[in-house]
């Protein structure tokens, strides 16, 4: 469902230095699977996810979502993908209902379907109490739930979520991850990145550890279960190996 093959992204700084943000990332996320993309800050997680979401164009390599290639069919990718990042915001002067409805229209939903979809998302995300309040007046958790609703409004088969629990309290993070598990169980492919390893250790099916723009390690939940120290130990061991290399 989500596939990347040898993805590369280079930037050039003003002084002419070449920055290799992503340097040959390959990954696959199958329908009904939730995969965690883990790494320190600045190792290429967000850049990889932005390429999958068609916000950045790859310097080399290919990627696709639901069979649509990010280069040749970006609109197809966007129809099949729900994307959320820590930096994506919500319009301050629109209400959650208006935000969800406008993105429903952008995704081509019919007006009658939009009303039903918005109502079900508002209920599922616990936004009923603030549905008609401007987003600028909402708490961080409520805004993040509106963002998630925006990413889900067109009922996409694939989700790419870049630090979705950032800024949420423990309860908010737990509710959101519960929701993602439900999405997974409904057959969606979910790629999620986070720095809170303990949150996703028991929820993701697989883990990809990225360092210096490359995937250095891949473990399944079952493999981690037999490992002393679990995900955290595997993560730090991989980083140490990456630094040595």
């Amino acid at each position, binding site marked *: 469902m989500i596939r990347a093959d040898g993805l590369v*992204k*280079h*930037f*050039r*700084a*003003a*002084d002419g230095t*070449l920055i290799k943000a992503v340097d040959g990332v390959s990954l696959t996320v199958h329908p009904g699977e939730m995969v965690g993309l883990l790494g320190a800050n600045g190792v290429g997680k967000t850049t990889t996810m*932005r390429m999958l*979401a*068609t*916000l*950045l*164009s*790859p*310097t080399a390599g290919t990627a696709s979502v639901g069979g649509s290639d990010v*280069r040749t069919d970006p*609109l*197809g990718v*966007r*129809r099949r*993908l729900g*994307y959320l*990042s820590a*930096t*994506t*915001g*919500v*319009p*301050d*002067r*629109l209400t959650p209902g*208006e935000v969800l409805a*406008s*993105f429903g*229209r*952008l*995704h*081509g939903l019919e007006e009658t379907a939009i009303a039903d979809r918005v109502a079900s998302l508002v209920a599922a995300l616990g936004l009923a109490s603030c549905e008609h309040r*401007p987003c600028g007046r909402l708490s961080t958790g409520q805004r993040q739930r509106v*963002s998630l609703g*925006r990413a889900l409004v067109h009922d996409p088969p694939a989700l790419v979520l870049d630090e979705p629990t950032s800024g949420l309290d423990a309860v908010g993070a737990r509710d959101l991850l519960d929701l993602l598990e439900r999405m997974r169980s409904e057959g969606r492919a979910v790629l999620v990145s986070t720095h809170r390893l303990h949150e996703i250790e028991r929820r993701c099916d697989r883990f990809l550890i990225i360092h210096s723009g490359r995937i250095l390690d891949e473990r399944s939940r079952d493999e981690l279960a037999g490992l002393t120290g679990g995900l955290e130990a595997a993560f730090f061991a991989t980083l140490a190996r990456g630094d040595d290399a």
Partner: protein
Amino acid sequence: MSDRRRWRAIRTVMHRDLLEFVRDQRTLFVTLLMPMAMYPVLALASTLGLRTALSDLEARQAPRPLAVALSGPDATAFAKRIETAARGEDGKPDNWPSGLSVKVCDPIAAQMLIDEGEMHAWLHLPAGTVAALDGRETVPLEARTSAVQPVDARRQEHIVAVVQAVARDARRRRIAAEGLPASVFEPVSLTFAGGPKAGGGASMDGVLPTAAGGVLVLLALLTATGAFYPAIDAIAGEKERGTIETLLIAPASTGDIVAGKFLAIWAVAIVTLLVNALSIAATAAVLVRFIPAGFNLGVDAPRAATAAGITLVAFLGLAAVAAAVCLAVTSGSRSGKEAQNTLTPVILLVSGLSASALLPGTGGTPFAVVPFAGQVALARDALAGVAGGTLAAHLTISLAASAVVTWLLLRAAATAIADEELLFRGPDSVGSPFARPAPRRRPTAMQGFAVALIAFASLWYAQGLAVEDLVLAVPSQQAALILPLVAVRLWQRVDRRETFGLRLPAGSRWPLAAGGGLLVGAGLFVVVAAATLALRGTHLSAAARELAQRILDLLLSRPWWLGWLLIAVVPAICEELFFRGWLLAAAAGDAPERRRAVAVVFLQAAVFAAFHLLPERMPQTFALGVALGWMTLATGSLLPAILAHLAHNSVPLVLARYAAEGHGKRLVAGDASNLSGWLVVAAAAATLVGLCLLAACRRPTAPSAPDAVGRH
């Protein structure tokens, strides 16, 4: 994607943005409240000012009492003459005093009286003065006023009126003494018959459109300002809030997103325009009630209605261009603050362009295509009563030009909105704004823009302070252009060779490029002058005639080489270093792709034309700027452009020097009406040959950088 789905996406973006705008207090203030309050306040302030000025004028013009002291042996007799003259005046003249008192006294008392302010003037009348009045000579009289108590101008007019009355009385006596009839000094008597009596008020015909020009410029500026905050909010604000990403991952093309945002901003600009227009109309209706009866405005109701209609339609195009300009500029900004800083000069540009329509010599078909200026000129022409057919043609041209400019700007915005650098990357380094930057090959676009702005201001001041003599005026103007450039170049440490194209074109074939430049420059002057003549006619403004006369005076009164040096050589070098060197290099960057190259050639040509400050010369300078920009980019060298500029400026000087009497000035001003058709054909052929030679000397396209990255 189907058209229906695209249109739905555009409408959704527009609706979403409009909702945000109407909930933004800044937008509401600029759109609705400011125009509603501004025009009445402006009108009230001007009415009060005008009323005070009129009251002052009235007070100054009101007759005052006059007291005159007379001394000397004939004082009493002269006093009687004054009394007789005052009685004999059929209708008192305008400057007659409200009351007249005459006192006969000795000179010492008279001096005291005027010094104490009791008398306003003193006339000393020696013996024989009155007898001389009845004779045949002119009698010299001296009215003395006090140095301690100076007499005001109005009372001086009263003294003149009284003495003139005495003189008229003396004239009547002299005529009677000669036995002549009174009609001997009134050979003609004129009365009006037939038509109705003209109104007592002055006519404002011709004055009103000029006076309304200021309001039209304000209307253009406020319409553009209406797009200001929405544009910042629509792109830069979304980047700041992180919501632009959510739009870019929706299944809509960047073109559709930009179109939706444009429609929302345009709608706000149109509402701003309408509210401003309504406020102007209401204010004007109130002001008309205060105009004195019989005062002729010079614009009747049907003409005013036509002008209002044409203005509104033309300004719809202006609002579209304003919305697109603001959108394109803010698309290149990372934050609201950056967008605000970048938009401020744009508003200055809009003001300058709009106000340029009020300069003498503006208007006509070529001017109609200029954004902001064209619409203001069109509205002014409609108010001035220009023929309907001409107005309709200019309106069509203006709307078409607005559509093209808007479309180009939206294309630029669509490219910039998804630019990865602008979307996700902050500054690469931080430092003091005065820190000297690292050496680089070419100036940045911002450096090019900043130097152009400094040079324009510097040229403006130099022009204002310039002496009449061109021998000093030309070097000071060129220095105003080049000195800011030298200072910035030294500070910014750009590569001289790369920036200013200091290399020979086409290697060993450089003579071909040089010849091509000379032919293009010389031929283009005649061809464009002939084309301008065909389009605009032979009318020249007073400013153009005056400049031409000064150039001609320089040519004829000084050595020929001095005129050539000042008018052709110095501008060819200085202006080419500035426009085709610094500005073109800054705008084009390294190896520009075709579309960008075309855009920057036209952009620098427009700036080049604007720097010449004389609107009627702009078509000529714009065409020259395009040719010079193209040849510089094509050959990679400044030499052909310098030679072309030199030849272009030399042609009218050579022709004027040997032209028939009276034709020289027109030639220098760019009017080719006295040139033969064969010369125009020869010039066109020379231009073509020159272009072919230059095309043959084009440098090979630079290979792209091996690590270049970008959207695929």
